[in-house]
């Protein structure tokens, strides 16, 4: 996943999609761990983006 090319909003949207799919049982248990890994990366990416934005706006 090339998160560096994503914007915060795009990453957030992807995360929401993953959560929504998991919640609606669209993802079976096998695929879940892969999606969770992806989601964790997206969370990390979003947190870093937010930190950078916050620093830049101080």
């Amino acid at each position, binding site marked *: 996943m090339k998160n560096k090319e994503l914007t*915060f909003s795009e990453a*957030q949207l992807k*995360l*929401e999609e*993953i*959560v929504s799919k*998991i*919640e609606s049982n669209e993802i*079976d*248990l*096998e695929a*879940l*761990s892969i999606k*969770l890994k992806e*989601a*964790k990366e997206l*969370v990390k990416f*979003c*947190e870093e983006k*937010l930190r950078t*934005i*916050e620093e830049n*706006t101080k």
Partner: protein
Amino acid sequence: MQAINLSQLLYKIDETLQSQFGYQTFWIKAEITDVKKYESKRWCFLKLIEKKDTEIIAEMKATAWSQGYVFIEQFERLTQQHFANGLQIICKVKVKYSIKYGLSFDVLEIDNSFALGQIELQKQATLKRLVDESNGQIIKDDEQYFTPNKRLKLPIVIQKIALITAQNSDGQRDFKNELLNNNYGYTFEVDEYLCQIQGDNAHENIIKQFEQIFASNINYHCVAMVRGGGSETDFKPFEQYELAKLVANFHLPVFTGIGHDRNTSIVDLMARQLKTPTKVAAHIVEHNFMFENNLLYQLNQIEQNVHLKIERAKQSIINLKRLLMSFDPNNILKKGYAILKVNNVIVSNPSLLKIGVEIETIIKDKTLKSVIKNINKSTNEE
């Protein structure tokens, strides 16, 4: 031929005049000219004249000694104008004759209400002319005058100023001091157009400065015309038609601070009047501060919005993170749940489980292998 001395004849004239006029006094109406004031002695020498059209038809020397001088001082205080050539006055005089100095009048009193009335009449006539001859550009409404100059929009920030003032005057110093040492540290460029601002021909000097500003083609943001520290009485230049007309139509906004609080001159009425040089400078600084203040407000609003957005985004990520944690199988196993696998495939369809099949049970930290011996229907299955 028998001759008498000059003085003998003159004494006879003196006697005749004395018998005719004695200590009588007369109220007369006349124009004054050749005015010479001796302020330290409180004397004033002048001529009283009467004109028919432009021709002088009567003329008499006159002197206001200290008794009459009191009224001259009062005139100047009331009118804020010099007691100067060209004024129409009504004064009480006494005929005086001296064999050495000839015939003259002693001015004993001046009717200042008449003088004030004359000045006001003149002022109203000038204002009416300004309105009448402006092709509708100068409008009078409820004692306010709306001129093209007053209608000019001020730039958002004023930085480049043309200053009309007298060299080394208090007005020049007060204006620059207030402007250049302002509390906000704003910088200004001030070009000075220096000239005599008092005296009979001052309005011509001032007009020349306006013409120079126009001819300079420099993009000034405004003109400040300031005067201070001079005579309290010399406002006549600011009552002149030509100067007032020029100011009313000048292409740059004009601020006046000509240093008098009691009266408003005609030029003041045509421009943005701020009374004193210090007030003009303070107004310009305040104008710029309004701009900065507005900018700071906008910036603050943006910062608040950004902060709010970041906080919302943070909260959203925290919420998503919590949900993800709750979905994580490792966290589910910690709660006592297990995962069943047959042939290394997670069993999500229980109907695939049959007696004798080997299953793998994954619980927290352990994997158990077993064979199905019995299958019972779950008691809590609905």
